[in-house]
């Protein structure tokens, strides 16, 4: 067997294989490039939806909206999650990557797939939005690019599972999988289900785009949402894993009860794909019984999982803080938390906005009757920007501030900016999401270039409050864009031009494997 190069992280004590480190770096860089591309598109879409500016012409609005959705929801998120799989698999388990060459082949397949898809979108060959509903027809290369990207992601998931087997066989860890790795396994299982459904619809649609077969629009929607929504549930599982990780790293959070947390991850695996049915609540081709069983019964079991994590993560943080001596009063533990640590502030904002805004609105809109008044309004993007952006992306940003010193072994550049970045991003996204939600309550449609219907043969009047709300939405979105821009500046500068972390700056500290225990840890030895 070929010898594998390892280094021992002076900070965590974990053995990090060179292959895992390189693959994490490559996927992180690709994710950041995707974030920059999708972020530029986001600003253009935002300035068009802000009626007072109305930046883009109609054709370019739908083109850029397609770019924004695909680049952010698929490319940015999945590249980052591939990095998380290598971290949670190889690094957390002190193991080598099972098949690094296959990992690299998968990475380049994903890059090629993403580039092909980007080319079709930017050149006007795929103005079909993220959902690309049939009979909207894109260039065949669009579907082919997505298929290549998805195959690459599926291969990385296979490498992750193989790495778990290698780690078990080579006894690189003791006992059960750490909770973070367990969460990553959940995400990987959901990924297999998701990508399977993606293949089931994108491959026929690719042949349909070549004129070789027919695709039924209702079947397309049913299967596509098996991909479109379930892919966001991969995010949820990864995000929750990162919550546990960041809680332990930043404030010594403990896992209250391993069995309960792991059971909640199992609920995700069993029921979260079924939750995709809520996208079809107003579709006439499906029976009310099917809709209600899926969204008012099974979906709530997945929601229950999120509510369990939504309690256990902050409770673990509180208990960890109390075990550090912050026991005065009800909220001393929260007041004296390290709010200047961007990892911690990102964690808290991710939990709050995901739960209070994204979670509450999502479950409410997932009710069949209420879906009638929320469907296809701005309330829907208001909901999912609170979950995917304020929740998932915020958690990803927070963990980046630990990945840079731990994996890239660099100091974080522009440190004062990095410390305020989560406040700008989360605050902006909170205002943005709430304004969108309220504007949608007044009936403002989503995915719409011009709600004033200028030059149309009919007139549509909205409540005057809508103009104010769209202005507030723009201000929130631009503030979040500044936060996102700072994140990109800080990460790119730190990784490529940053000051290397010197041994003396970190070797004196010692953190236990942060999520491998279920009981409060014994005190760490004095340094």
């Amino acid at each position, binding site marked *: 067997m070929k010898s594998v190069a390892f280094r021992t992280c002076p*900070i965590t004590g974990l053995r990090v294989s060179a292959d895992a480190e390189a693959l994490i770096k490559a996927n992180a860089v690709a994710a950041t490039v995707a974030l920059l591309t999708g972020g530029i598109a986001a600003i253009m879409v935002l300035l068009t939806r802000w009626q007072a500016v109305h930046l883009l012409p109609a054709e370019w609005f739908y083109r850029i909206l397609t770019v924004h959705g695909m680049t952010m929801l698929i490319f940015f998120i999945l590249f980052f999650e591939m990095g998380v799989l290598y971290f949670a698999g190889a690094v957390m388990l002190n193991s080598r990557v099972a098949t690094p060459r296959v990992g690299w082949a998968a990475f380049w397949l994903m890059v090629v797939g993403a580039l092909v898809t980007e080319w079709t979108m930017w050149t006007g060959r795929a103005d079909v939005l993220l959902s690309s509903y049939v009979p909207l027809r894109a260039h065949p290369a669009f579907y082919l690019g997505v298929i290549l990207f998805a195959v690459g992601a599926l291969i990385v998931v296979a490498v992750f599972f193989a790495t778990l087997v290698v780690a078990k066989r080579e006894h690189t860890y003791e006992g059960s999988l750490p909770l973070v790795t367990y969460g990553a396994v959940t995400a990987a299982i959901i990924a297999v289900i998701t990508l399977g459904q993606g293949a089931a619809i994108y491959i026929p649609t690719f042949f349909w785009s070549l004129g070789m077969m027919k695709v039924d629009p209702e079947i397309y929607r049913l299967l596509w949402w098996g991909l479109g929504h379930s892919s966001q549930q991969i995010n949820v599982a990864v995000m929750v894993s990162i919550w546990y990780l960041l809680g332990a*790293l*930043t*404030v*010594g959070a403990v896992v*209250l009860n391993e069995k309960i947390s792991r059971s909640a991850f199992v609920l995700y695996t069993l029921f979260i794909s079924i939750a995709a049915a809520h996208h079809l609540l107003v579709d006439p081709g499906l029976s009310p019984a099917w809709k209600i069983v899926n969204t008012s019964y099974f979906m709530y079991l997945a929601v229950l999982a999120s509510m369990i994590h*939504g*309690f256990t993560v*902050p*409770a673990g943080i*509180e*208990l*960890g803080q*109390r*075990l*550090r*001596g912050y*026991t005065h009063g*009800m909220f001393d533990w*929260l007041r004296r938390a*390290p709010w*200047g*640590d*961007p*990892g*911690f502030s990102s964690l808290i904002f991710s939990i709050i906005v995901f739960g*209070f805004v994204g979670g*509450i*609105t999502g*479950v*409410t809109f997932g*009710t069949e*009757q*209420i879906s*009638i*008044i*929320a469907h296809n309004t701005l309330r829907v993007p208001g909901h999912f920007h609170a979950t995917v952006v304020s929740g998932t992306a915020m958690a990803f940003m927070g963990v980046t*501030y*630990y990945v840079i*010193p*731990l994996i890239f072994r660099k*100091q*974080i*550049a522009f*440190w004062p900016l990095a410390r305020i970045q989560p406040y700008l991003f989360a605050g902006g996204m909170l205002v943005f999401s709430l304004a969108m939600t309220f504007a949608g*309550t007044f009936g403002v449609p989503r995915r719409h270039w011009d709600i004033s219907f200028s030059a149309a043969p009919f007139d549509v009047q909205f409540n005057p409050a809508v103009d104010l709300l769209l202005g507030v939405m723009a201000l929130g979105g631009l503030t979040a864009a500044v936060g996102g821009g700072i994140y990109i500046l800080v990460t790119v500068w*730190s990784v490529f031009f*940053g*000051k290397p*972390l010197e041994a003396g*700056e*970190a070797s004196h*500290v*010692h953190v236990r494997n942060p999520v491998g225990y279920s*009981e*409060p*840890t*014994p*005190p*760490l030895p004095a340094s």
Partner: protein
Amino acid sequence: MSMYGIPSGIANPPRHSPQVDEENERLHSAAHGLLGPTPGTVVLVLVFLLAFVAYYFVNWKLLSLVWKIG
């Protein structure tokens, strides 16, 4: 202690109290009542549930304005 360019969780990693076991026992004692060892989180969760109930009710009210009965 914090260091420039290094998050506090690395520069100054969290340490539990030296009497962590005794402290843990004390926090889990029945004397803490219904709120248990994490009273702050329980209060936050109750706030969350109230927000949930309020938003859910408002949406049904809005629906009732669209679909009037009688």
